[in-house]
């Protein structure tokens, strides 16, 4: 399942990230914020009209757009 499709409040884990698809700049930012295989992730909020989503990543809460979240594959924790 992709992170942008993940139902809210469902503890999950990152299975894979499509770093190539994100482009260099975005990929680096996501890495810096701690996106990586095996990290715990949980969707918390979704903006209206397909706005950004907020997700818990490890101990942080990160906001990102759905297009970016689509590059992140998740699996149940």
């Amino acid at each position, binding site marked *: 399942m992709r992170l942008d499709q993940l139902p809210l409040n469902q503890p999950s884990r990152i299975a894979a990230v499509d770093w190539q698809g994100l482009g260099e*700049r975005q990929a680096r930012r996501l890495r810096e*914020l701690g996106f990586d295989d095996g990290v715990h992730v949980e969707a918390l909020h979704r903006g209206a009209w397909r706005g*950004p989503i907020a997700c818990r990543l490890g101990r942080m809460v990160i*906001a990102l757009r759905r297009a970016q979240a689509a590059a992140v594959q998740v699996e149940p924790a």
Partner: protein
Amino acid sequence: MVVLVGNPNAGKSALFNALTGARQKVGNYPGVTVERKSGRMAFDDGRPVELIDLPGTYSLDPASPDEQVTRDVLFGRQEGERRPSALVVVMDATNLDNHLRFALQLVGLGLPAVVALNMVDMAERDGLEIDTARLAAELGVPVVSTVAVRRRGLDELRAALDRAVSSARAPAFPAAAEPGNLQALQRRARTIAKAATHQRVAARAWTERLDRFALHPVLGPIVLAGLMFVMFQAVFSWSQWPVDRLADLQGWLGDQAIAHLPDSLLRSLLVEGVINGVGAVVAFLPLILILFAFILVLEASGYMVRAAFLMDRLMAGVGLSGRAFIPLLSSFACAIPGIMATRSIDDPRDRLTTILIAPMMTCSARLPVYSVIIGAFIPARSVGPGIGLQGLVLFVLYIAGIAGAMLAAAVLRRTVARGGGGGFLMELPKYQMPVLRDVAIGLWQRAIVFLRRAGTVILAVTAVLWVLTSFPQVPAGSATKQSEYSVAGRIASTLEPVVRPIGFNHGMALAIIPAMAAREVAVSALQTVYSIDASDDEKQGQARLAQRLQGAWSLPTALAFLAWFVFAPQCLSTIAVIRRETNGWRWPAFTLAYLFALAWLAAGATFWTATALGL
């Protein structure tokens, strides 16, 4: 020299404020647009040490100007900066997994370092127990627990820093940036964090409960709109009293000068130029401070990032990111700090677009112009329960600026600032009680910048304008008006044909030239023009500006003048900041051209429509 370095949201600035107090200097690194904040603190034996607060960054990749400077300072390559003798690495105790990665990178540089494990109180509240001894052993440097906002752990930090600085041999300086494998560092960081933290209960209660409202798809925007409404309401209603007092003071100073000085050109310059000209600007200080107080509190509390989250969808519609909301909101106080705040926007195209539209946000310098013209031409009648016509017109002017900016962004994003972007990525930090002291320091710095501007640029322009409108003097018995005969009048006469079609007269042409220095000057310029013509004494001139304007301008002309000021880039300081932030003359020149074109068209459209409607 010791530098504070760490991730954004680690509480670095709070720690810096706590360590140095108000003894700070804010400047800029040469050639780049990064703020250099330095301050002094003293070790226990009284030895002083200079402390530098580096910008918050996530890594040492030289991707943004902030990171470039951080990296250059750490490697001793930053122009005009000595190499640091030690680092204070600031980490958020509640977010070790992530902050440790950067800390490992920093400690790996080999400079003497102390880790400030900040916000341990929040970690405790979250049920986290952190083994600092274990952390220190893994990192190989001392680790001190601190709570910067409550000034806890500062003495221990100073002592540890003292030991680190004194015991260090000449630091082995890293030869080059070791790029390091980000992923490997990240994994090591997670392993260390796991080993050093014990979670007692899983709780993040506060922030999560608040966010359930603040980020709710329906309630969230309502809360945001409510906050914005309260903010602008407060800016205008709370500032009334101090603004009136400042006006009283200005009047009193003018009276004193008139009473105690002989009638002379010098007195006239002092009263019309200095006291009234500068006073008209200083009168807006309370307004600016209230707006900034709100912005600083919203930022310090962590809400501003939530606002960016809520606004992202809307901003994405015109090709911008939610991050642009913060600089644009600051621009309602003044475009200069707004444009500087765009530094946090990662994508260069997003950032450029935000810079180019920021001058359209209705900054506080437009208010003197708006309030004088509205006061003179718009009747103070009610158009509905609690809605006055004057207030409604003011509201429309604000909306016109926002709509213009959004439209311009959509066009710019498809033309000159095409490509890139498409991203919005932000950490949502935990909510925090803003610290009064930090807000006060922020306000103080804004006030100083503003007053310095009023005391230099605006004072100089007003004085020069007074001289140019007063000389040469019309020979006695001539029918020519002084405002047309003077040097300024002749300059205005050459501009007049350009603005004649949009309904502007000679006096207005004369007023918009000095308004280039600062929009507020338009008001004092109109005052100077009309009082010099009438050769009143200075006191009467001030009281009767509104009446005089009513006599000299038609309603369509007045409305056109308002529309002009919504768009016209009449502020050289803004243009100068755009030049600095974009490193060249290309974009400031572009801004001048497109905004003047917009202003001319908007004023023209207003004038022609109003005339056709027979207003």
